[in-house]
């Protein structure tokens, strides 16, 4: 948190400073962006984060291992399952717990449903950002179905807290698979509908093509991950490049863009939903019977050591770096959040564009503030 960004003190007579946020309709949370403007053109930008810093990492040091999972829900409330996963995977890796096959598939299915949920919400929010008020209702129609499915499975609609160390609390609901099948049957068409409604719209393409171009090298140098990085043309997806769980068994494509502009990032997310649907179909077909949770010791006390596990969340690489000293509580936890790095590149790609572009570019980065501030 800063009072006056240092760069902003050098400001010419033609320029002025505009505080976008901390309360602003399109910063998606409590994010403050200090803009230096010349008319409508952005000449300087300084993201100011930390308004909702809650010191999750410090809190985790005082909690037992099994008590930390719900905290990871709250980091990214839009794809909570993926964040649970990175954390429980870290503990499981430290303890050497082998998951039963069924649990792995269930995790994949939940994570992909979660990705679809998150992307649908991003789609609606992006529509609002660029002034299209209708897409949200269409996207939420499907999102509601997905949430209902996930709710039936986990009991939660937003912060699911679905994963336990070693697997799951309960098995899949009886009608989960039939509902999933029914949903997937029409989802493909629905994605085409979304694209027709917003992504391929003339005004939207005019507004997003060639705007906020992020080239490959800059993206990697800034540690950008996820759909934003893939939009820049890097075919990097942790599910393919460093496959965790059973992802290596599925047949799916890593969607990439060409130019790295805002529109490519949108397109990548739309394609990713298709791929997620594909994975879900395969996972539902391959789902084995058996246990849904491994045998886990009652007291979770991993051996001393360090571990870094990462998953491909809806926003990019989410990682948990954990140092254990052999007690019931972690010695140190660090959450590596994708939006943190994705936001840091904002300045690089925004300068020289208009105020409206700042909003569109931020929307295409798909930021979730709690995971930046933690």
């Amino acid at each position, binding site marked *: 948190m800063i009072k006056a960004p240092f760069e902003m003190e050098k400001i010419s007579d033609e320029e002025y400073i505009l505080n976008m946020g901390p309360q602003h309709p399109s910063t998606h949370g409590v994010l403050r962006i200090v803009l230096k403007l010349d008319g409508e053109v952005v000449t300087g930008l300084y993201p100011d984060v930390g308004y909702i810093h809650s010191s999750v990492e410090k809190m985790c040091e005082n909690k037992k291992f099994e008590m930390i999972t719900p905290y990871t829900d709250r980091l990214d409330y839009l794809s909570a399952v993926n964040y649970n996963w990175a954390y429980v995977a870290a503990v499981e890796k430290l303890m050497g717990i082998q998951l039963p096959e069924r649990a792995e598939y269930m995790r994949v299915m939940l994570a992909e449903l979660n990705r679809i949920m998150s992307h649908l919400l991003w789609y609606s929010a992006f529509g609002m950002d660029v*002034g299209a*008020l209708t897409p949200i209702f269409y996207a939420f129609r499907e999102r509601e179905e997905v949430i209902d499915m996930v709710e039936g499975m986990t009991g939660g609609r937003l912060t699911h807290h679905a994963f336990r160390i070693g697997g799951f609390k309960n098995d899949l609901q009886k009608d989960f698979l039939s509902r999933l099948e029914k949903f997937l049957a029409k989802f493909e068409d629905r994605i085409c509908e979304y694209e027709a409604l917003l992504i391929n719209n003339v*005004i939207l393409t*005019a507004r997003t093509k060639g705007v906020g171009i992020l080239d490959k090298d800059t993206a990697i140098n800034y540690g950008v991950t996820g759909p934003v990085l893939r939009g820049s043309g890097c075919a990097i997806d942790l599910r393919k490049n460093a496959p965790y769980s059973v992802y290596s068994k599925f047949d799916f494509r890593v969607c990439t863009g060409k130019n790295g502009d805002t529109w490519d990032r949108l397109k990548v997310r739309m394609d990713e939903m298709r791929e997620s649907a594909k994975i879900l179909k395969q996972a539902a077909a391959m789902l084995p019977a058996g246990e849904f949770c491994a045998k886990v010791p009652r007291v979770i006390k991993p051996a001393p050591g360090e571990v870094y596990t990462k998953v491909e969340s809806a926003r990019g690489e989410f990682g948990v770096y954990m140092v254990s000293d052999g007690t019931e509580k972690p010695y140190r936890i660090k959450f590596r959040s994708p939006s943190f790095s994705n936001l840091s590149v904002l300045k690089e790609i925004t300068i020289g564009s*208009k105020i*409206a572009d700042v909003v569109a570019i931020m929307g295409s980065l798909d930021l979730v503030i709690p995971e930046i501030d933690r």
Partner: protein
Amino acid sequence: MALLKELLYNSGKPLSEFSSWMHAIWAGWGMPGFLLDFIFQLVIVLAVTAVLVLNALWIIYYDRKISALMQIRKGPNRVGPFGLLQTLADTVKLLIKEDVNPKKIDILSFWIAPLIIFIPTFAVFLVLPFGNGLVPADLNIGILYIIAITGLSVIGILAAGWGSNNKYSLIGGMRSAAQIVSYEIPMVLVILAVVLMSGTMKMSGIVAAQSNRVWFVVPQFLGFIIFLIAGNAEVNRAPFDLPEAESELVAGFNTEYSAMKFAFFYLAEYTNLFLTSAVAATLFLGGWQGPFLPPIVWFFIKTYFVITILCWIRWTFPRIRVDQLMEFSWKYLLPLALLNLVVTAVILKF
């Protein structure tokens, strides 16, 4: 019954008869005639304003219902039958709310801005022919008057943006000024083509010119489209809602406004929408003319047809960017409107 029919279908005659009859009585009482004229004018103004305010309330409801239809939801349905009284409830709420004046505002322009926007939008309706002879004041320069008066609203928006002492408001006001000025020009050029075809600037004359031929929407189809686009931009509705783009500028020029002053903006916005649609219906769709139904009904049907198109556009498109907005006006609309004018002139000449 016959009188009612006459009143509905050919309002001009009975009204003028009524006027001269009243004048006769008035003169019998020994009162000066201009006083009666004044009273007549007052009654007309009040009647038009009352109709328009009620109409604006209805348009808001209509717009919300259309948006609900497009967004697969139900829309207002709680207050009154089918939610018809929702807007009334909203308005009452706005009127009884506390009127917040931020500390460092420019009090004069902050207070006067809603009025500058509100009054001209209503003043314009004086020259609109609602029916056969049902024109509050049939000026010879009717359409010119409309252009001139609607141009005033930009001053109000600028004043609101400046007076609020808020950067978002100021940007909104500036955007609005640029936008309205840019879109006024193609609009005027299109109107000129219509004036060329009808040979008069009188609104009733323009309607009359369409009575024995086809409506101007057929020969002036390009003009109609340009008018709709420019008109949509003039009333600051999506995709041209840049002055109040809520995702960029919070609420643009009315960020700091609340309560009654905000209600003024809100009503003015929807009255403006009605105005643009009504002018479009009059210029291109033959005004109040039509078979079977009384003229005033036709007038409203046509106007609501245009409103529906504008609502449809609003709830479908994302917002355009400011430089594209300017580009679109100056690079595409203006040359097209000029071409339209020249072609019309050439065809009329030969």
